[in-house]
């Protein structure tokens, strides 16, 4: 192989292993799911191959599924919002910390990512469950219990806890590229501390907020363990519904249709979001 040819082709065959992995692990299952969503299901005959839109029609026309999808996206929006409100100041504080403390805090933030979501969610159950630590304590001192398990508030709080590291990390990554002198410049021009933060720091980390929001939103809307454990059967979201369709009622085609709709919904949000970023900020942050 000549050096020139080698240079030209190297990127392709070097990326081949990655491509094969994605093709086998992602593309094939996706196509199979897509096909499955057009099949039909019969309780006596099982799954029937064929092509029909009736699974989609069932989902689109049924209020039961509307509620589930609305809840899924509502969780996504609320969790993303809270992650921004909590995560951005936290990233800012983290960035201002001195040498040893910054690393310690960063480990404290990233550390939980190393623990399974199931374990972290069960931690909330132990702490906030009906017979958990907090509620038992409250009962002992004669106060009312705080409902947490099987409430939307509970699911959202636990999801924020799971998702917030992603927001902090993406905002922090952008913050490191922000010239700290811009804060001094703003102060010297007469800006108070809150004004420095909201008019100079936040606008500069918007790319980080937007990419963090993308991660948090898509992970929240497709989250399974937390809504399943804390929300239970009563507060179903799209992914727990898919699970039930596949494993409990065994209506695989319907489950596949829900999965495809969820995927398309998340993709629509992500693409729309990206458009917004590009239109608004391409000029400023190239």
């Amino acid at each position, binding site marked *: 192989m000549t050096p020139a040819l080698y240079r030209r082709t190297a990127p392709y065959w070097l990326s081949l292993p990655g491509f094969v992995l994605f093709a086998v692990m992602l593309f094939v299952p996706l196509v199979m799911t897509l096909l499955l969503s057009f099949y039909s299901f019969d309780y006596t005959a099982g799954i029937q191959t064929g092509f029909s839109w009736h699974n989609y029609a069932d989902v689109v026309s049924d209020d039961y599924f509307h509620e589930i999808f609305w809840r899924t996206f509502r969780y996504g929006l609320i969790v993303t919002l809270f992650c921004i409100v909590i995560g951005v100041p936290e990233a800012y504080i983290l960035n201002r910390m001195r040498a040893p403390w910054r690393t310690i805090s960063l480990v404290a933030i990233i550390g939980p990512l190393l623990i399974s979501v199931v374990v972290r969610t069960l931690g909330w159950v132990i702490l906030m469950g009906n017979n958990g630590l907090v509620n038992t304590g409250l009962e002992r001192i004669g106060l009312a219990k705080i409902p947490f398990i099987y409430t939307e508030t509970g699911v959202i709080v636990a999801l924020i806890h799971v998702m917030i590291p992603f927001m902090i990390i993406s905002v922090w990554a952008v913050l490191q590229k922000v010239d700290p*002198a811009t804060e*001094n*410049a*703003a*102060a*010297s*021009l007469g800006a108070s501390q809150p004004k420095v933060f909201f008019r100079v720091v936040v606008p*500069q980390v918007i790319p980080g907020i937007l990419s963090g929001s993308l991660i948090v939103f898509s992970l929240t809307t497709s989250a399974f363990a937390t809504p399943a454990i804390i929300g239970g059967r009563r507060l179903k979201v799209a992914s727990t519904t898919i699970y039930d369709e596949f494993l409990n009622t065994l209506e695989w085609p319907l489950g596949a249709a829900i999965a495809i709709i969820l995927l398309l919904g998340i993709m629509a949000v992500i693409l729309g979001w990206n458009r917004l970023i590009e239109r608004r900020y391409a*000029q400023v*942050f190239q």
Partner: protein
Amino acid sequence: MGFLQLTSLSKRFGTFTAVEDFNLDIEKGEFVSLLGPSGCGKTTTLQMIAGFLEPTAGRITVEGEDLVAIPSAKRNIGIVFQSYALFPHLTVAQNIAFGLEMRGITAMERSQRIARAIDIVHLKGFEARFPKQLSGGQQQRVALARAIVIEPRILLLDEPMSNLDAKLREDMQLELRQIQQELGITTLLVTHDQHEAMALSDRIAVMQGGRIVQIGAPYEIYENPSSRFVSTFLGKSNLLPDPAQMARQISLRPEKTRLVPAGQGKLQGRVTACIFFGAHWLYQVDTDHGLLLAYEQNLGAARARNGETVGIDWDEAHLRHLEGQE
């Protein structure tokens, strides 16, 4: 009494003393430079005046008013940062408007003042650009406009030219000096560039180890350096032993020397380098007192070649006795 007064100013970081017993009086409208190598405390001093650092001891007053207790947002000081520190998310006009907005100035007056500032720094037509779309020189003009538009009591310049190329730097220096004089704004420049300090300042304060070692008009300091450090940091200097006192040295500026035929002059030596700078020739001559530098104005071709033996002569009046070893 000075307009800006720094009195017994000190700043310690733990056990490290960045600035120690620093005293400086600056008159209204004066342009003063703090000149020194990195780590000499000049930037620390500037940051204390700006309010980004709190002095460990000492006073900073403007027209008798103590600044130390006032937060930087209320000091009314314009600063041009080394990195320019422009707001990347705002256009040129919005960058300049920022300080005026913070002061609650009406939109109408704001646009008039922005237009005037843009006029002063010659940035007409760039109002709607973002900083990323500007060259380094243009960014610096925006930084300057943003600092002067608020009509600050004092203008602080933190190594403002260090990111510009040589040609642009010279142009900007001339322009900056002109703007400063037109506005009559009291200015403190922090720099490690002796040429910049000399070109711009009414007075230069040479700093070393957190203190001012010499202060005066550029010509005055250049001609009469008090120490070896000043004589070598500000311009080049040949150091000769002082025949009167063993431990002391004499400074002789290279441009005050003349090359003469071998056998004549006060010292003999062999030319080890001959470099052409356009306006002058630089000769390096190996003598009994070490390597000496000699500048000759470019009045013709080189007077001596490498390896040639020459004499060096000078007027006794140009010798400067330095205080101490340092």
